Structures are given as structure tokens and as C-alpha cells.
């Protein structure tokens, strides 16, 4: 009975989102209200406990939302200037070979877009481009969805990884290596899948060397950037380096000559300047000690006392949360602020070079607001739900039950839990918020390597986030497949299933090799 009550908030969200097709914002609110009721009635939460839990949740929410808001603002600043369109139009100039085009747009460029934007943008931008080049709409949506999935955790300026760090309160440098390693390997396999979806076995036979080369370059770059604590740009830099490698490689596969028009180099350089600013700002903030010191002066940190439940209708023993600081936010060097500085500088450059037309500023602000409001609501309610669950012992109960029932098989199951969370909520970030503590506590009980298990959580969530109904609807609608979302999902499932299975194997190996 205790287990069912502890699991019920997650079940509520799952049923409402999958069964009743509710949005994440509505389902999150329902989950929050449900957890509040059962926490008070059955788990002995009193006003003081709920007050501290809400405050802790607010800190976590701010930590995650600062990145999401600023990342979207930066995306809108560049998109409104026509930068994304310009870069996209330049890509077909590289080659007319179909397989190479699929790899460049569906894999490398989609990864780059995930690095800078995310939020469904990669498929929404690249799928119509591929359809325009003559690929079938289904192949376009499926290949671009697979192509960028590996970059989700460290994409969107690292907002999903930030959620993992914030929720578990573990240092980023301990979590980044395995997460980046697992996703990098999945990215390489993803490249083969993109080639297969767009050109079958022949495409793989012809381009396997190119796929290995690009996959290794992107994966290794992604890994190295992530472990040097610049994880918020790991996918972005991986994508940029991938694009740089693709240029010479594409010359080896020119394909049949067709008229692609004239490449406008000046426009391309201006378009890329916004992203160059991003790299520069991040390097200045992270690498130069005086700047880092100056920006690190204002820190939001709150010390919380010991919090105990007071018993409830289930008659459970009091659950104690030890005293300690909540999430620490270093205000002016926070990734969200870094993105804000970049957005302002990028805006100045695009404005100075005449990229904006009348009303652009209004569209940037309104577009950002429109895009972030509903996700802000869903993240706030789900984070609060998760923190209350943790403070009344629900997560502890779930972890103990899971450890007892699946035992040694837990590492194999771990990525599927993350995948389930992302499938339900449509977001790697939300999955990490809901399940990361559970995964961490279960691995503690089973004495497994926590970093490996949390890497499995976020990698499984990243890969499965692309088959979430909300993402599929966006992808299908932009490629002209409205009403055929089921077909897209059916086509995507085996590929994503295979990728999550790969993460299961890697997790099993990881905990076996590194106890």
C-alpha cells in the first residue's frame, strides 16, 4: 500500500499525459496537487515541512528556468535575424550526394541546432529542409529525430544536465564524463541509423567511413568539452566541429551536379557571428579568473534545518531530511546569465549589420514569452512535486522497493526509467527532475556507481525524448505529416529502442567495470 501511494504521483502524470493526452503543464499541476494531498494525509507532511520543501523547489526551479529562458531568448535573437535560415541554406551547397545530405542536415546540423536551441527546434528546422531536397516526409522526420537525440542532455545550453545536477546536488564534474560517454556512443550509432533511414544498407556501405569519422569527431569533442566543465556548450561545440569536418568530407562525395544557386559567404559569416560570440563569452566567463571572481560575488544560498515528517494515516516512522544548504545559485556567472549576455551581444551584432526588420524586437520578446511560459509552469509544478516526494520519504520508499525487487538487474532497467520519464513528460529535463533522486537513492542502496546510473538516467531520457508525443506532433506538422503522427512514432520506436538498449548494455558494463 505504501509503495502504491509513493508511486501514485508518477502514475497520475503518466496516465494523464499518455492516456488522456494532457499537456505537461496540466499534468504537472495535477501531479503536484495529488502529491500535496497524499503528503499531508498519508505521509505526515506538516506546514513547516511543506514550506521548506517549496522553498527548496523554488531554488531548483530558478536554477533550471534561468537557462531555459535565456537559451530560448538567444534562439529567438538568432532566428529573427535569419541566422538559422542562412546556415541551413548554405548546407546543400556542399554536396548533391543524397546520403551525405542526410548526414549533414539530419545528423550534424540537427545536433548543432540541439546545442543552441533544442525544444523541438532541430526537427522543426531540418525536417522541412530535407523534404525540400526531395526526401520523403517520413524519412525526414525520423532521421532528424534520431540524428539529434544524442545531443539533448548537453544541448539547449545544458538545461537537462543542469536539472540532473540541481536535483541530485552532486558536482557536475562527477556526472558529466559517463553521461557524455554514453551519449557520444549513441550518437555514433545514430549516424548509421540516419544513413540507413535515408538510403538503406547501400548508403551505410558507401558512407560508413564518413559516419565513423564524423561520429568520432563529434563524440570526442562533446566528451572533452563536457568533462572540462563547459558542459553547457558540449553539444553545440560538438555540432560546430562536426560541421567543420563535414566541409572537406562532403567534397569527396559531390554527387550529381545540380544548380544550387550562389553561396552568400558574407551572410553566412554574419549568421555564424552570434554563435561565435557565445563561445567567446563562455570562454571569458569560465576561463579568466578575474572575470569569474567578479561575476561570482553574488551567491544565492539558503541553509535549511532538519525536517521531519509527523506520521500520517499510513502510520509510517518519521522520515528525516538532514539539515544542509539548498541549491546554490551563483547569480552572474550562472549559465542562464551567460546566455543572456550572449543574447544581448548577438542582438547588437545582428542589429548593427542590419539583419532585423521593423518589429523584430517585439517578435523576439513575444516569441520567447510564448514558448517558455507553459514549460515554466510544467517545470515548476513537477520540480515542487518531486521535492515534496523526496521530503516525505516517497522517493526513499520507491528506491528501497526497486532495490529489493530488481536488485542486480537495476543498471539494465535504469535507462528505461529515464526513457519512460521523457516519453511521458516530453522532456529530458522533466525526466531528470522526476527520476534522478530515485535513481540516485536506489543506486546508493545497491552500492552501485551513482555517476554511471545517473548517466543511464539522462541518456535514456535524452534518446527517448524524441519519441514523446509532443515532439512527434511538432516534427510531423513541420514536415507535412499532420495526422500521421502514429506512423512517425511506429517508425521511430525500433531505432530509439535499440539506442536505449545500447545504453542498458553500457550501464551494465559500467557498473561491472567501475564498482
Amino acid at each position, binding site marked *: 500500500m505504501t509503495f502504491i501511494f509513493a508511486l501514485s504521483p508518477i502514475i497520475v502524470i503518466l496516465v494523464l499525459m499518455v492516456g488522456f493526452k494532457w499537456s505537461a503543464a496540466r499534468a504537472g499541476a495535477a501531479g503536484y*496537487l495529488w502529491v500535496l494531498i497524499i503528503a499531508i494525509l498519508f505521509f505526515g507532511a506538516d*506546514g513547516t515541512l*511543506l514550506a521548506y520543501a517549496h*522553498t527548496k*523547489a*523554488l531554488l531548483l526551479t530558478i536554477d533550471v528556468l534561468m537557462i531555459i529562458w535565456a537559451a530560448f531568448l538567444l534562439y529567438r535573437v538568432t532566428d529573427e535575424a535569419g541566422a538559422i535560415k542562412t546556415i541551413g541554406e548554405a548546407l546543400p551547397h556542399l554536396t548533391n550526394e543524397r546520403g551525405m545530405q542526410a548526414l549533414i542536415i539530419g545528423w550534424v546540423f540537427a545536433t548543432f541546432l540541439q546545442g543552441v536551441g533544442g525544444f523541438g527546434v532541430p526537427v522543426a528546422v531540418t525536417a522541412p529542409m530535407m523534404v525540400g531536397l526531395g526526401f520523403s516526409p517520413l524519412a525526414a522526420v525520423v532521421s532528424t529525430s534520431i540524428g539529434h537525440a544524442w545531443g539533448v542532455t548537453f544541448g539547449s545550453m545544458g538545461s537537462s544536465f543542469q536539472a540532473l545536477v540541481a536535483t541530485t546536488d552532486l558536482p557536475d564534474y562527477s556526472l558529466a564524463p559517463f553521461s557524455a560517454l554514453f551519449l557520444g556512443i549513441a550518437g555514433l550509432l545514430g549516424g548509421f541509423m540516419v544513413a540507413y533511414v535515408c538510403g538503406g544498407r547501400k548508403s551505410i556501405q558507401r558512407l560508413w567511413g564518413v559516419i565513423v569519422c564524423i561520429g568520432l569527431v563529434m563524440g570526442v569533442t562533446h566528451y572533452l568539452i563536457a568533462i572540462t566543465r563547459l558542459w553547457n556548450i558540449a553539444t553545440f561545440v560538438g555540432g560546430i566541429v562536426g560541421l567543420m569536418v563535414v566541409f572537406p568530407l562532403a567534397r569527396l562525395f559531390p554527387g550529381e551536379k545540380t544548380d544550387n544557386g550562389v553561396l552568400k559567404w558574407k551572410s553566412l559569416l554574419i549568421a555564424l557571428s552570434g554563435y561565435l560570440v557565445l563561445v567567446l563569452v563562455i570562454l571569458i566567463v569560465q576561463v579568466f579568473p578575474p572575470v569569474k571572481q567578479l561575476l561570482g560575488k553574488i551567491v544565492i544560498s539558503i541553509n535549511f534545518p532538519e525536517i521531519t515528517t509527523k506520521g500520517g494515516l499510513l502510520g509510517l516512522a518519521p522520515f528525516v531530511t538532514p539539515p544542509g544548504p539548498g541549491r546554490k545559485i551563483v547569480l552572474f556567472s550562472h549559465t542562464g546569465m551567460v546566455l543572456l549576455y550572449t543574447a544581448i551581444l548577438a542582438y547588437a551584432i545582428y542589429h548593427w549589420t542590419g539583419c532585423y526588420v521593423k518589429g523584430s524586437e517585439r517578435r523576439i520578446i513575444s516569441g520567447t*514569452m510564448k514558448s517558455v511560459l507553459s514549460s515554466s509552469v510544467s517545470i515548476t509544478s513537477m520540480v515542487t512535486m518531486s521535492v515534496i516526494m523526496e521530503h516525505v520519504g516517497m522517493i526513499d520508499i520507491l528506491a528501497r522497493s526497486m532495490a529489493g525487487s530488481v536488485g542486480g538487474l537495476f543498471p539494465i532497467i535504469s535507462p528505461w526509467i529515464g526513457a519512460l520519464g521523457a516519453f511521458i513528460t516530453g522532456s529530458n529535463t522533466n525526466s531528470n527532475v522526476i527520476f534522478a533522486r530515485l535513481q540516485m537513492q536506489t543506486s546508493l542502496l545497491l552500492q552501485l556507481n551513482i555517476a554511471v546510473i545517473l548517466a543511464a538516467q539522462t541518456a535514456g531520457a535524452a534518446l527517448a525524448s524524441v519519441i514523446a508525443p509532443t515532439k512527434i506532433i511538432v516534427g510531423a506538422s513541420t514536415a507535412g505529416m499532420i495526422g500521421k503522427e502514429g506512423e512517425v512514432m511506429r517508425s521511430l520506436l525500433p531505432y530509439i529502442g535499440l539506442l536505449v538498449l545500447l545504453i542498458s548494455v553500457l550501464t551494465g558494463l559500467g557498473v561491472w567495470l567501475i564498482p
Partner: protein
Amino acid sequence: MNIIESLKKNKQLGYFIAFLLMTLPAAGLLPAADHAAAAWIWILIGLVVVGNLIALLLK
């Protein structure tokens, strides 16, 4: 009822109000808890609940 209906028509405004109600009262919960002001705690949690109820009603 009219307020809910108008928020349903203007979902962005609805989300904005819901978000404010979910976050602003939560900021007041720490001093309330530190001073053991039980009445304030429940009033503020009540406002957070209202914010979630608004989000729940926005179809």
C-alpha cells in the same frame, strides 16, 4: 467563472498568472517557516495551489 473562461481564451496570460502564483508565494514561505507562522504558511501554500489549479484548468 468569467475569469477562468477568459484565461482559457488567453492561455498565455493564464500560464503567466499560474506561474506567478506558483513562484511568488513560495518565496515568502521561508521567512514564514523560520518564524513558525503557521497561518501564513497555509495562506501562501493556498496561493501556490490556486496557481496549479489555474494551470490544471487551461486546456
